[in-house]
Each structure stands twice: as C-alpha cells, then as structure tokens.
C-alpha cells in the first residue's frame, strides 16, 4: 500500500513538471538538434554555429535551402513548408543570441600552409583577382551587418565543405553570386589553407558583426543590400 502511494506520488511529481513554454525558442528545437543548444554549434565538427550570425545572412540561407540554392537534405526538409515571415523571425531569433565562443581546436598544419591561408585571408592575391576575405567579411572577420557572415568560430570541415560546394554549384547565393566567382578562382590548396587558418583563430570579444565596411565591396554581391 505504501509502495503504491509512493508510486502515485512519483507519477504525480513527474506529470507536474513544467510543460514546454509557448515560445519561439521552443518552436525552433528542430534547429538546435543539430546546431547545438541555442545554436552554439554541435560537437560533431560539421554543423555550423548559427547563434549571433547577421539576421539577413541567416534568413537568406533559410530561403536558399527552400529554393534550391543550397542542397542539404535535412535543412531543405525542415524549411520546405515555412513561410518567409516565419523564416525571418527564426533568423532574427538566432541572430539576437550573444553567446561566448569556445576556444578553437588546435591545428597541426605546417606553418607554410597557415601562412598561405593567413595571406589570402588578410591580403588576398591581386594577381589572381582574389580579394582579401577581410575586404567583405570585416577587418575582424566577424561579418558585417546585416547580410555578410563572420568566418571565425566555424568548423574547418564546414568551411572547406562550403567553399567546395560553391565551386561545384551545390551552394549558390542571390545573383550576382560573388562567392561563387571567388571560390572558382581558388585551388584546393588555397581552400585547405584558408580553412585551416580561419579555424585556428579565436573569435574576438565582442563577436558582433561590424556595422559597416570602410570601403565599398570589391565585387558585386546579390545578397548584400545596397
């Protein structure tokens, strides 16, 4: 009898746990399953962090998945029946999160590789018409509001995967697709070096995207509002 009462009390205790709140954070649980709690990126080394990225950038990516400019089955499946308004709201939710970044994982690449990557990121290569990454993604590489993403705090495999996808047309952006042009001018060695160096850099504090760029964009980008 006492056991039965105890069991009842336990069951009642279980049922009385607070129900999930009626919030946007609760609604976007399908996103955080892969992108990590609060969109901080998961430990699997592939799914990128989405927390704190510029809102318009995130919105563009969600729409790009829905409209075939990006092709990752699980993302396409999740956004396929979501409206522009809702995707904008979801993008805004993750963009507004300010969470500390973990330190980058140590890299073991040869110094020459890292130097090559650093040079391309900071200076580009004028002879090959390659603008520096910082010319668009901000001097601190934390992105530029509202549409250009930061490049730090991302898994190296993800960075390589994205540049590769741009090279072979699996990832596209609104035309004119400036990143596609740049990606096609990069050699596989360039891509490895850039990804290695970027992944080795700590994210500065504060990690917010810059408000604007000091100079105009070095080339035309369809996803950046004028």
């Amino acid at each position, binding site marked *: 009898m006492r056991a039965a009462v105890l069991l009842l009390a336990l069951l009642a205790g279980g049922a009385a746990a607070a129900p999930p709140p009626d919030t946007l954070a609760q609604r976007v649980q399908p996103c955080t399953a892969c992108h990590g709690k609060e969109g901080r990126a998961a430990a699997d080394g592939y799914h990128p962090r989405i927390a704190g990225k510029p809102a318009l950038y995130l919105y563009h990516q969600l729409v790009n998945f829905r409209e*075939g400019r990006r092709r990752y*089955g699980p993302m396409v499946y999740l956004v396929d*029946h979501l409206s522009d308004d809702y995707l904008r709201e979801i993008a805004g939710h993750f963009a507004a999160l300010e969470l500390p970044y973990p330190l980058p994982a140590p890299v073991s690449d040869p110094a020459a590789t890292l130097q090559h990557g650093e040079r391309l990121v900071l200076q580009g290569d004028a002879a090959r018409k390659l603008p520096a990454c910082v010319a668009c993604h901000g001097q601190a590489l934390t992105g530029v509001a509202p549409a250009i993403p930061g490049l730090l705090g991302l898994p190296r495999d993800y960075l390589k995967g994205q540049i590769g996808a741009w090279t072979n047309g699996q990832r596209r952006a609104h035309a004119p697709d400036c990143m596609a042009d740049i990606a096609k001018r990069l050699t596989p060695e360039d891509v490895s070096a850039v990804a290695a160096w970027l992944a080795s850099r700590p994210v500065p504090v504060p990690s917010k995207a810059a408000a604007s760029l000091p100079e105009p964009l070095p080339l035309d980008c369809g996803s950046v509002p004028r």
Partner: protein
Amino acid sequence: MLRRGLLLTLVLLAAFAGLVAWLNVRGEAPIAADAAPADGTPQQIERGEYLALAGNCMTCHTTRGGLPYAGGRGIATPFGTVYAGNLTPDVETGLGRWSAEHFWRALHHGRSFDGRLLYPAFPYPDTTRVTREDSDALYAYLRSLPAVKQANTPHALQFPYDTQAALAVWRALFFRPGAFEPEASQSADWNRGAYLVRGLGHCAACHGGRNFLGATPQGGLSLAGGLIPMRNWYAPALSAPDQAGVADWPLDDIVALLRTGVSPRGSALGPMADVVYRSLQHLRVDDLRAIATFLKALPPTGSQAGDGKPPDPALRELGAKRYEKHCAECHGAQGEGVKSSAGTWMYPPLAGNRTVTMDPPANLVRVIVHGGFLPATAGNPRPFGMPPFGLALDDDEIAAIASFLRSSWGAAAQPVSPQDVARFRGSAGD
C-alpha cells in the same frame, strides 16, 4: 501444322495490338481542324488560378526555386524519373501552340499535343474526371502566365517503360477515360467534395496505393492507403478508422486540418504538410467543407488494430528509458501531449495516436528520425516542430522507442524491429 500455329500466333498478336490500340483511343474525338490557341475571359482566368491551386499543379510543374509552371521537376518512380512539362504559354517549349481542346485531351485522355501518350506520373487517371468547363478555365489561366522559354527535360525511364508501346499496354490495363457522375442520393456538398477529391485533388495518387506497375487500384476511386513510391512515407487510408479515417471527427476539425495543418484530432506532417501548404490552405472554406463531408462519409475499410504481440521486455524497457529521456519533455510522461494557451496542440498526444499504431510503421519511424515542422499556414503561422533524432539515436534505440509507444497507454500494435527502422528511415529528402 507449324504454319498454322505461326499464323494463329500472328493473328492473336495483331488482335492484341488492335485491342490495345483501340483501348487507347476509345471515346477520344479527333481534335477539330480549326482548333487554335485562344485567350480566356478574366472570369475563366480567375477560376483557373483557383483550380490550379486545388490541383496543386505548380508543385510538380516548377523546380525548386525555378520560374512558376516552367516545368523541369523530376518525379522519381520505380521505373525511372519522369520530368514535369513546361505549362507556360511559350510557343516553342511550353503550351503556346496548344488549343483548349488539346489541353482537355491531356487532362481527360492523357495524350499530349503531338499525340504521344503521357506518363501517369501526371495524374490523368484522376484529372480525367475534371469537367470541360474547369479544364478550359485552367487552360485560360495557364495561357495568362508569362511565357518562359525552358525546354522540357527528357524522361529518364528504364526499358521497356520508356516506350510508347509499353505505355499503351499499361493504359489498356489500367486507364479508362472517365467523367464525374454526381450521385443524386448524396448532398451537393458530398458531390462537390467527391469531384475535388477524385478529380483535380488527385488524392488517390498517394492515398490510393499503387500496384507493382504503378497503377492506382479501382481507377483511382480507392483511398485505402499505400506507401508512396520512392518516398518512404505511408499515405494512410482515408477510409480506415485506425488510419486516417475521419468518420467520427467533427466537420470543423477536418476543415481545420486541411486548412491550417493542425486540428484537435491530428496534424499534417511530411508530404501532407506540403499539400496543405501549397494547395489546401488556399481553398475556399466551402470547398474544404465539401471535401470534409465527402471524406467523413467514406465507407469504412478494415481495421487491424490490437493484433500485435507484445514486444520483448528488454526492448520495451530500453524504449521506455529513451522515451523518458528524449520524448517525455514534450509529449508528456503518459504520452498525453501539450496544448498551447490558444488550446491547439503544441505537441500531439502519442497515447491513442494513429500514426503511432499504424501499419506499416513508416511514418512513425520517419518522424522520429527526421522530425519536421508542421506547415506554416495563415491559420498556424508559427508552427512547432519535432527535432530530428536520427543523429542522436541508432536504429536499435529508435525501434525500441517505437515498440514502446506501440505497446503503451492502451496500444497493442506489432513491435518495430531495427530492420523496419533501416527500411523506412530513408533520407530527409525523400
């Protein structure tokens, strides 16, 4: 003797070919010599736009991110890929040279402008019931669209399915041109609903199931459920009380499900979320009530509930543990679900949930593996979603959760094996 046998074989073959040919043109009037493209009236265009939504034409006839109705989307079938055509009025690559008669012939007889037989991935076994008046309105609407020059992609079908002869045999076996015959004993709502469900709505294309040659049974009149070819989703029987039958639902709940994707009794996920998002949410409430009236009155088909053997106790215990860890927070410790302040389901109850107990368990497996959002409709603009668990849980754990659910809170359905999970999980893009 040998010659007589040969002669007999030849005669029989000729007779068979003649029969197939006759069955393929039966009831088909030749296109009038003076049939020419013509624009419709504004009323026809407006009506046609609505009917195109009811038929969900754009979903197949537009590529992801492509120009509306310019075609090019591949429909994967067990026989190869069929590419939807360009329906814009471009003269070279679209319907620019088609007359309203040609368009009617395609919808009604499944024959293209040049006389070639069309593949039934285009649901003409259903659209054959569309009236000439509605066909003309659709034609008028499509003609009013901006012309897009985009050549059709040739189908990529395996032999012999890529031949017109094979298609002619298929049609002789499975296709009869039809017409919607109203039933005088039924209400006007029922008849309107039947017309939409069995015609433009082509519900039977998924909910009718398909035989090994890809034909829907009973000429598309059955709604007894089936696995959707190549997609690993099960389209439940609309007539079965233990699947998606709605005989005991209030009419308003059926309308709510079709219009918003959520209802007090169930919600739309997977391919049905797509249908709600792109088609049903745009229909007039009177048409949705008509569809609901028709569905509610479908004669009930067989039930398989409660015939399962209990799962292995160790499997069930593992399932109970994983359920508590991953599922109970949203679906409740007793599978009771959670309602929002507005009174709609944030997370549906799993106790008494037909998707949980349905056979085959394809949808249960897919929902656990891939999760998913309900459609964002005007009536439910910020839907909740289920996280995908395919990365966090392996096939054994998913089978255990599914088996636990299928033997809890009054349910007694067959356990789900890890092999079932492997068979149905597929990829999210299916």
